[in-house]
């Protein structure tokens, strides 16, 4: 359904992103989606004169993902957000909040991720 998606392996992420920068693309944002089978899709969206291009990597939860914030500074917030909400292991973010950008200590780890089991007795009527 989405046009211009390139599936790339995790290792070549930085190389591809660097290519995007050289060909004059603007970084829009990144999206992470939990596939429900222990893997997470991460999409990186780019734009050049209103034409969009997307890079998709599929990673396991414990995989180490290099940060692209060194190349595109605009990725700082979104990478911190993915790290917190999905529990992605993103390394070397330029400004790393260490999991406390949006969440405080009391909250669950990775609330947007699928695999958490919430004990209803403690939390009281939490969905899923």
């Amino acid at each position, binding site marked *: 359904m989405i046009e211009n998606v390139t599936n790339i392996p995790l290792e070549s992420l930085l190389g591809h992103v660097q290519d995007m920068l050289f060909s004059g693309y603007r970084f829009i*944002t990144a999206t992470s989606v939990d596939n429900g089978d222990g893997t997470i899709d991460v999409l990186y969206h780019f734009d050049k004169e*209103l034409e*969009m291009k997307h890079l998709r990597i599929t990673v396991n939860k414990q995989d180490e993902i290099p940060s692209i914030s060194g190349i595109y*500074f605009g990725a700082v*917030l979104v990478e911190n957000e993915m790290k917190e909400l999905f529990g992605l292991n993103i390394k070397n973010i330029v400004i790393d909040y260490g999991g406390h950008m949006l969440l405080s200590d009391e909250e669950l780890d990775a609330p947007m991720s699928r695999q958490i089991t919430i004990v209803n007795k403690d939390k009281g009527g939490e969905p899923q």
Partner: protein
Amino acid sequence: MNGKTVIPFGPQHPVLPEPLQLKLVMQDEKIVEAIPAIGYVHRGLEKLTETKEFTQNVFVIERICGICSFKHALAYCQGMENLMGIEVPDRARFLRVIWGELHRMHSHLLWLGLLADAFGFESLFMQAWRDREKVMDIMEATAGSRVIISTNQIGGTRRDISPEMLAKIVDVVNDVKEDIERVEKVFCNDYTVKHRMVGIGVLSKENAKLWGAVGPMARGSGIAEDVRTLGYAAYGELDLEPVVETDGDCYARMKVRLRELYQSIDLIKQAIAKIPEGPINVPVKGNPNGEVISRVEQPRGEALYYMRANGGKTLDRLRVRTPTFANIPTLLKMLPGHHLADVPILILTIDPCISCTER
């Protein structure tokens, strides 16, 4: 002495309507580094949308932002319509433009007021908000609410605007146009305003692109990008030229917004002149399946929606990238080198919407 001081700016600050904290690392009066602390208004709306039906999500999505709610709903509805292959009736597409541009007008007028307030021009602030009230009144008279107007639904709009009301909208926007012309003179020529804004926070075209600035930020730096030119809703059938200024400073960004007000008035009049008769919505059948990306131009810039559905009633994932989310990194890069006194103006010219950013 090369001692550095850290000054916390916000989360409560007179110029900030919403909580954003910036930790400013200062050397004397100059900023060396700025680190944001967000998360004060994180509501987990993206998670909430996974538990609601996809038709109910429109109401959740609208509550992401208190200023550009209609545009959020528009982005979501357009995405779902693409995904499900729904053809929206022509009249609904034009109605969406009318309400969308009314939203842009009230958002920019609100921003102009806040800006005037930030440099202490109290009477100008009142004047701008007074003009905004007229726009809010037609919003309530046509859609039922002042801000969260809830007129979008998947497949069209929920309400129609009667011909008499359309005529009234033209009258009101003409009236507002005269008002704006009066405040525009003050904003553009006043000594105090110029003194606080010209040459402050210069963002070059290259940097705007590199750091990912969107909306009036990018257009103020000479990037002629406006998602509306892609022609979603009925924008394809209307005359539309992105408003561009080349200076890249705070003054240029303000001028972009002022000129966009005239553009919105023009678009509303064009849409009202061209609006066809006909039905305003089509029924939605079945459930969505697949993934889709939808983009719209909000008052603050481009918003991107990503949706993934699995054929059920609820969505697997709904991702919202709001314009402020993209503009905050640019702000962080812009701040170093400026004086502490210029920080409020600089923050305001990105038109921060923190509720949008954190969702």
